[in-house]
């Protein structure tokens, strides 16, 4: 990771120097090494840039605004970020011309809560090369297994290939593998296998925790409307908070529906939810249904393919398939 960090710094300053871009969206260290914030940096403050296992945030959404500004912006895209990037380019939200995309490798992002849960506290710095993670803490050096502390979404990594870039920091084939291989639909399957009442109870339990902070919406690269329907007083459904069970349900159903066929399954919604609602399970249900009903589809795989909800075939299944196929009553 250290080498990559060095390579990256070198590459970025080179690109800014030679005028390929005039600024970069990168990560800045916060108070702690795991407390990373995305930031726009220029030549003068470039030394603040760094890249480690806590740089999980999907930065492609910031490009919507950045690509409207003067000059070209340098974007650092991990493989999974390129899906969102493609999707945004496809929807004309990001002006491709104004972005120089540098593909950076990723060996899986870490979940600090999981590290802490292992009893490792007082974290000072981290060395995440290979299978083992070395953590320097106030109480001495500790180690843990990478697989134990990977973010949930990294366990179902889409792979190390960048789907869009102007340049790659290192060739994809030389990049590290993320140890994945879990079935991303495992929990969806589990829910589907429950009875209707059990599912209802599960989701009531989860969604009733929603405080309508809009973190999921704000982080989501697909949820990028200028004005959200829920903020538009003329839409008839605007609301700042959930008044009751129904509104908790509706907000999340509609949010999932609006990103259906466009969601790249980046998992940011669940990552940022302060209430730890597994929101990605709503999106994944749509992804699973789309795959099953209309054929495999990965949003953001490229920047041209028609989304499943803006396409059809004459022989599509009827909605009644839900009666036969959906979860148990």
């Amino acid at each position: 990771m250290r080498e990559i960090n060095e390579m990256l710094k070198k590459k970025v300053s080179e690109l800014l120097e030679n005028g390929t871009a005039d600024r970069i969206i990168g990560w800045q260290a916060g108070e702690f090494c795991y407390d990373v914030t995305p930031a726009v940096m220029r030549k003068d403050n470039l030394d603040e840039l760094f890249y480690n296992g806590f740089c999980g945030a999907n930065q492609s959404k910031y490009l919507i605004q950045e690509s409207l500004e003067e000059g070209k912006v340098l974007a650092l895209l991990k493989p999974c970020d390129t899906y969102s990037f493609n999707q945004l380019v496809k929807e004309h939200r990001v002006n491709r011309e104004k972005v120089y995309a540098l593909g950076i490798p990723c060996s899986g992002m870490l979940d600090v809560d999981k590290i802490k849960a292992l009893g490792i506290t007082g974290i000072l710095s981290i060395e995440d090369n290979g299978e083992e993670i070395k953590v320097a803490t106030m109480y001495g050096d500790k180690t843990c297994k990478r697989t134990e502390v990977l973010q949930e979404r990294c366990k179902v990594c889409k792979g190390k290939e960048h789907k869009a870039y102007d340049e790659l920091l290192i060739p994809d084939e030389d990049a590290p593998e993320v140890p994945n291989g879990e079935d991303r639909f495992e929990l969806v399957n589990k829910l589907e296998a429950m009875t209707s009442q059990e599912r209802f109870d599960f989701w009531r339990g989860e969604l009733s925790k929603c405080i309508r902070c809009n973190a999921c919406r704000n982080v989501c690269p697909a949820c990028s409307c200028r004005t959200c329907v829920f903020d538009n007083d003329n839409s008839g459904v605007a609301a700042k908070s959930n008044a009751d069970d129904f509104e908790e349900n509706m907000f999340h159903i509609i949010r999932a529906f609006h990103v259906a066929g466009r969601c790249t399954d980046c998992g940011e919604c669940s990552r940022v939810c302060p209430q730890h609602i597994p929101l990605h399970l709503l999106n994944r249900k749509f992804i699973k249904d789309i795959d099953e009903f209309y054929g495999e589809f990965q949003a953001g795989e490229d920047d041209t393919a028609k989304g499943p909800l803006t396409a059809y075939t004459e022989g599509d299944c009827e909605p009644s398939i839900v009666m036969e196929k959906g979860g148990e009553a």
Partner: protein
Amino acid sequence: MQVNETNTVNTEEKEFTPLIVAFCCNWCSYAGADLAGSSRLSYPANVKIIRVPCSCRVNPLFILRAFQRGADGVILCGCHPGDCHYSTGNYYARRRMTLLFSMLDYLGIEKGRTRVEWVSAAEGAKFSATMNDFAATIHKLGPNRKLRDLRCEK
């Protein structure tokens, strides 16, 4: 014997009369409903029709809204696939509704509360039969409790 059966059904219905919202496309299903009317083919009075130009005009928000406000069932009727007045509208509606219904099921909402039926302008009898059947299904399911705004309770 028949008389008796009708009576029992009636008394039961008094306890629970389901409210059903039917979105009908203007070209086929709304015309089918008109044909059911001019053929005097009855269906329950608690089925209320909202005219939309095409089944593809129906936003999932409308369906959720109906449940929020107290509907017990929502049915969407459009031209048969291939016969859409706008040639392709119902194909999009079909995908949208399939996914929406699947999501509602995933959230634990009873499957039978939502339905899509394709009813042509010539299918007055089918329209009436569909509404009767749907009303019976909803009657069996009982009142919508899982997807409603309790503030809207009478």
